[in-house]
């Protein structure tokens, strides 16, 4: 079977399951007893195992299998979730994520050894507990012959035997009315410790200490003393009813029980499979029917809708004198339908931002551990929807901002206590729709941006001169952070401070047609505000003419349109400006910037489109205005990629191409 055609589906689904696992493991960390979460994790791991098996990715399959074993133990209450177990599970998840990424890049599985991870998982089970059926057996009979060992234990046994030591399995049965079971157990350990090494116990030592056992517990010890000596010593402890000791002469027996256990485990899995599919089935019915569609097909659909809109615009443009009543009605109807169709297609492309936000709790958890800071992440508005293309791109900038917030923003624990702040810092990640754009905020309650340090650093890095630095106001100084090659971290940490940073964030967001701003106040924290257009494909634009050419300016960046007297233009430091509404407005002559071959019109009145970018604005001089129109943004393609000042092109009603002005790059 040629599996390559399924590779994409595998990767997509695997990523979904990993995301799911990540999220639910975090959930489990907060509420370790939540069985629903546990089942969800189990399901994801199980599906992943099956998928990887089908595709022949054995490392993933083996690892998920071991993870499943642990989860199974937890599910059946034989293992309690603790941070140690979770850490190992997270580690496995990281490995799986790495593997899947590797597969998506190369199509092949990563050639990395998973034994270390696998052993960690196996050790959790064996160090903690004996598998399920063992326990049941133990309850049914007090025979200790089926005390099982893992590979590690077997090695220990083999070595001990080779050195002429003796290996005993000991079952200690306490008297029924024993009051202080753990104390007795402690005495047992204490007396064995003198001449023997306890390398395994069931239940685990912790559980024995916590009195989590009935009247008996089992131990495996290595010692040079004889069987009787051990038995006598232990029997001398009061409230012990019986000591059963069995000497292990070789490990084959252990092997036998080991393989037996695997067989049983497999039967259990088969049962789980059944149960799983039933549960999954029930769930599917609940969430409604979905179809997974290749994004290219959606793009294609979008293109067709775009074409339709262009034609519609063209029909609308037909002189109303020449069309009769029927025609007018038909065109109006067409307009309604195309608008609805456009909305419908756009909705299909919209994805909740949850997809991106989901990975942050895990990241924050890891980061705060790494940096030894306590950080709470508050996420809101994850249901806010954005165009799929934006979703795909927005992840990295957000990661950057959150890392910055935790690394640079949130203070060390001690510093926070000194400043009378809550010991745990908080980072808020919010998304909400605001008119025609979506706002994403990353806010921390850390120390805020130290403006004077920013200035100092900028001077040190020769981004600006001292004189310039002194002249900057707070807002302008903060904007320096977005300059390439700027980093204020005193120590370059693994997390941030490599000097590539906010400028990349800014470039990325601007390439998505958005803006980013910062608000900060000393000792109270800082807030990064990202504004993104709701959709990238179809926008409202103002069509203008410059010379004989037509250009489109996105309406959302236009503040207002006005006309000015040519004589009022002043020149300040080589830059044309006018005084407008009590402010100085820089003037950009579009015909110059765009090299339009055109003699300046000799009118004394100039039409100015005032365009804003964040808080700044600028006046673009155009020759005339055509009007507002819904336009479909098309890329100029790879061949013409990277042209300054042009954001793309659109096709007008008459089939002509008009270029879209990238106003952000001109301010």
């Amino acid at each position: 079977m040629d599996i390559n055609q399924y590779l994409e589906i595998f990767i997509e689904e695997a990523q979904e399951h990993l995301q799911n696992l990540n999220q639910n493991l975090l959930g489990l960390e907060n509420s370790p007893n939540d069985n629903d979460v546990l089942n969800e994790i189990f399901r994801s791991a199980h599906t992943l195992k099956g998928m990887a098996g089908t595709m022949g990715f054995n490392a993933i399959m083996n690892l998920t299998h071991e993870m499943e074993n642990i989860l199974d133990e937890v599910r059946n209450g034989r293992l309690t979730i603790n941070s140690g177990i979770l850490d190992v599970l997270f580690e496995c998840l990281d490995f799986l994520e790495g593997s899947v990424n590797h597969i998506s890049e190369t199509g092949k599985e990563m050639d990395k050894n998973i034994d270390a991870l696998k052993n960690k998982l196996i050790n959790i089970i064996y160090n903690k507990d004996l598998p399920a059926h063992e326990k049941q057996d133990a309850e049914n009979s007090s025979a200790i012959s089926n005390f099982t060992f893992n590979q590690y234990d077997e090695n220990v046994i083999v070595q001990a035997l080779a050195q002429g030591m003796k290996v005993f399995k000991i079952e200690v049965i306490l008297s029924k009315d024993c009051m202080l079971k753990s104390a007795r157990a402690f005495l047992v350990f204490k007396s064995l410790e003198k001449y023997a090494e306890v390398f395994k116990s069931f239940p685990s030592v912790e559980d024995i200490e916590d009195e989590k056992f009935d009247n008996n517990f089992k131990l495996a010890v290595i010692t040079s003393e004889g069987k009787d000596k051990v038995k006598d010593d232990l029997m001398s402890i009061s409230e012990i009813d019986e000591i059963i000791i069995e000497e292990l002469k070789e490990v084959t027996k252990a092997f036998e029980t080991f393989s037996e256990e695997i067989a049983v485990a497999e039967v259990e899995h088969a049962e789980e499979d059944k149960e799983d599919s039933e549960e999954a089935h029930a769930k599917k019915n609940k969430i409604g029917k979905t179809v997974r569609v290749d994004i290219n097909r959606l793009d294609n659909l979008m293109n067709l809708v775009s074409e339709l809109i262009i034609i519609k615009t063209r029909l609308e443009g037909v002189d109303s004198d020449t069309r009769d009543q029927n025609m007018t009605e038909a065109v109006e109807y067409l307009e309604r339908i195309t608008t609805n169709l456009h909305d419908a297609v756009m909705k299909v492309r919209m994805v909740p931002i949850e997809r991106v936000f989901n990975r942050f709790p895990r990241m924050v958890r890891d980061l705060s551990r790494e940096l030894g800071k306590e950080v709470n992440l508050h996420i809101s508005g994850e249901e806010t929807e954005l165009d799929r293309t934006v979703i795909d791109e927005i992840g990295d900038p957000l990661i950057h901002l959150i890392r910055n917030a935790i690394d640079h923003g949130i203070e060390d624990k001690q510093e926070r206590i000194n400043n009378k702040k809550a010991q745990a810092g908080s980072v808020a990640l919010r998304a909400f729709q605001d008119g025609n754009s979506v706002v994403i905020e990353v806010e921390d309650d850390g120390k805020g941006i130290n403006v004077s340090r920013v200035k100092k650093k900028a001077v040190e890095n020769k981004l600006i001169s001292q004189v310039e630095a002194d002249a900057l106001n707070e807002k302008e100084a903060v904007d320096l952070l977005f300059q390439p090659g700027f980093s204020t971290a005193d120590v370059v940490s693994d997390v941030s401070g490599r000097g590539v940073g906010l400028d990349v964030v800014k470039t990325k967001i601007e390439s998505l047609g958005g803006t980013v701003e910062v608000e900060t106040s000393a000792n109270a924290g800082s807030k990064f505000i990202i504004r993104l257009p709701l959709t990238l494909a179809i926008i409202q634009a103002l069509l203008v003419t410059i010379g004989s050419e037509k250009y489109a300016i996105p309406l959302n960046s236009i503040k207002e349109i006005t006309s000015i007297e040519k004589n009022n233009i002043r020149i300040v430091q080589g830059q044309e400006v006018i005084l407008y509404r009590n402010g100085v407005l820089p003037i950009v002559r579009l015909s110059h910037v765009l090299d339009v071959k055109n003699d300046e019109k000799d009118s004394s009145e100039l039409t100015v489109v005032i365009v804003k970018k964040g808080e700044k604005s600028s006046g673009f001089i155009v020759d005339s205005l055509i009007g507002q129109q819904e336009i479909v943004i098309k890329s100029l393609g790879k061949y013409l990629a990277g042209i300054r000042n042009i954001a793309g092109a659109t096709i007008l009603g008459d089939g002509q191409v008009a270029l879209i002005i990238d106003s952000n790059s001109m301010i």
Partner: protein
Amino acid sequence: MNYTDKNNQFVVFELDNEEYGIDILRVKTIEKMSNITRVPKTALYIKGVINLRGEIVPIIDLREKFNLDKKEESENTRIIIVYVDDINVGLIVDSASKVIEISNDMIELPPESLGNTEQNNIYGIGKVDDKIITLLDVKKLLNV
């Protein structure tokens, strides 16, 4: 040279009274001249973009690219839309009319004496009857 296609077919076009050929597998369509929208800040030989059935396609003036004299467009002027991977580009040529087949043994490597730029764009010289046809390497021509 990886041109081992069985049929070795070439779209032949004319430029300044010389004949050129492009591997037919690189040609998408041949269009009549249409309105070209200028794109600022691009190389001189890039004339702009056109709307090709809803797709924006950049247009290269081959005369300009090959440093030939300018010529007014006539009713024979054509735009050959070529593609490399997912990049489509239109080439303005004086005329394009036929597709011919040239067997591999009738294709020679370009002469050493050619200038560097030209040599870079050419992958061979094809001989058909008495005529010589310069075969262009689209990939190198577009520099992709």
